[in-house]
């Protein structure tokens, strides 16, 4: 075999390998094949599985951040109830109706909302969610058990319910499913680290932290990394192209928050900003032409840091709204 042919063959192999690396996929073990305890005996596995489902009563106003089965039973007329669900950033939430005993004709209701809504402000905002606001509500009294399992589009969801007759109620099972590329996230904690990746998707994604924080952006990639060359970055900022913006405000809706900073070009190395707002959002606007990624860390601002702002900090806007 001639050396030229060998070289060509090697080049083709390398080229194909490199191209395969460009496609992003994750191998998830099949549910049937996935065995977290391969060394355990069958009895032990059965015992573990029986222990795993968490159950408790659901309160009229509640917040749940774990999987399990939750039962609400009205001991008196409960007219205005809501329960928030939140999971890890890289998970969807699935709400499954196990049992529903409410009097829809009598005025009871049970509605699932895809996201969170507080004081009329929604997360994700209407700009960042694929569904219109009315479509984000799934009303049990209208759909019945035809939609018995409802999956959220992000790591948060909530239900609104009214049960007037004592003894009536419902049972839900909350499960989580993996989300490979989380787009809209509310952080469970005031401290953490996250990489928001939007691969060739024409969508806007927000990461919301409902605390005053100092945020440190360590890496921003806007564009397609092909080999050793970074293609010309998209013309971001000015609301055009791909870019990342930092938002601050006092509500959940990112479309009603004040832009504090725009990041339009890729960079490496920390850029830090203190944001003393009730809600801080890192929002990525993507055209779909590129693979965009932003990595950041955040920690909650201490009270003394709120009292004495210094350096790169923005708090006057938020404080003026309180």
């Amino acid at each position: 075999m001639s050396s030229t042919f060998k070289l060509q063959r090697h080049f083709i192999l390398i080229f194909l390998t490199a191209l395969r690396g460009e496609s992003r996929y994750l191998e998830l073990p099949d549910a049937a094949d996935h065995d977290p305890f391969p060394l355990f005996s069958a009895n032990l596995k059965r015992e573990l599985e029986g222990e795993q489902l968490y159950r408790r009563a659901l309160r009229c106003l509640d917040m749940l951040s774990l999987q399990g089965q939750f039962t609400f039973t009205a001991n008196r007329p409960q007219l205005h109830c809501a329960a928030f669900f939140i999971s890890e950033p890289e998970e969807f939430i699935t709400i499954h109706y196990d049992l529903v005993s409410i009097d829809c004709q009598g005025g009871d209701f049970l509605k699932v909302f895809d996201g969170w809504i507080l004081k009329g402000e929604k997360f994700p905002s209407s700009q960042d969610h694929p569904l219109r606001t009315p479509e984000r509500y799934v009303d049990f009294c209208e759909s019945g058990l035809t939609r018995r399992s409802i999956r959220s589009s992000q790591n948060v969801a909530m239900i609104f319910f009214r049960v007037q007759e004592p003894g009536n109620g419902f049972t839900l099972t909350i499960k989580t499913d993996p989300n490979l590329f989380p787009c809209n996230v509310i952080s469970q904690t005031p401290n953490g680290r996250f990489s928001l990746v939007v691969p060739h998707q024409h969508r806007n994604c927000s990461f919301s932290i409902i605390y005053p924080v100092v945020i440190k952006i360590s890496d921003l990639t806007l564009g397609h990394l092909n080999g050793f060359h970074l293609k010309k970055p998209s013309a971001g900022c000015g609301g055009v192209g791909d870019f990342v913006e930092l938002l601050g405000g006092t509500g959940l809706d990112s479309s009603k928050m004040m832009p504090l900073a725009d990041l339009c070009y890729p960079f490496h190395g920390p850029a830090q900003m203190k944001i003393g707002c009730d809600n801080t959002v890192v929002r990525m606007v993507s055209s779909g032409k590129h693979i965009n990624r932003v990595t950041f860390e955040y920690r909650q601002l201490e009270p003394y840091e709120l009292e004495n702002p210094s350096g790169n900090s923005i708090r006057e806007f938020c404080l003026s709204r309180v």
Partner: protein
Amino acid sequence: MRLPLLVSVGVLLMAVLPCPPCRAFLSRGPSPGARQIPQQPQPLDFFQPRPQPEQPQQSQPRPVLLRMGEEYFLRLGNLNKNPAAPLSPSSSPLAGGSRPSPDEAAANFFRALLQQLQLPRRSFDSSARPAERGAESAIGVHQEATERKRRSEEPPISLDLTFHLLREVLEMARAEQLAQQAHSNRKLMEIIGK
């Protein structure tokens, strides 16, 4: 042990102290459990104001201070109005003494919160529906479709909750999650140790 007692006393004081605007706002008129034949039409008309002819229509939002030892306020009513300024912190009935168990603290917190929290009501034009009262059992398909369309155009169902309270319930949920994780780990170690 003093803690639940103090919380109960605080809640009782709030109920007993004269506060006519608060009482008027929290009054729901005929109890839903007493459901005389429902006067309201279409059971799917959520948040329709209860018939309270002896009271003027509530049009002003009223902030309510919830004494849980910290500074809270809850906005009730019109979502578009600006919130009132929070009042100064009161002495904490929860300060000092032994802390209750996490479940008891959570139950106390939510019980007290629910007494003050109320979802906002949609403003229905009740004057336009005198003919529908008493016809709730005979709603036609056409009316239901009309109602669905109208509901889709209405302001969304929402909850008035400050960020402060949202963080509180979020932290309680996180504590529950960690406790459950610890419990699962303990069970796992027990099983492995057999």
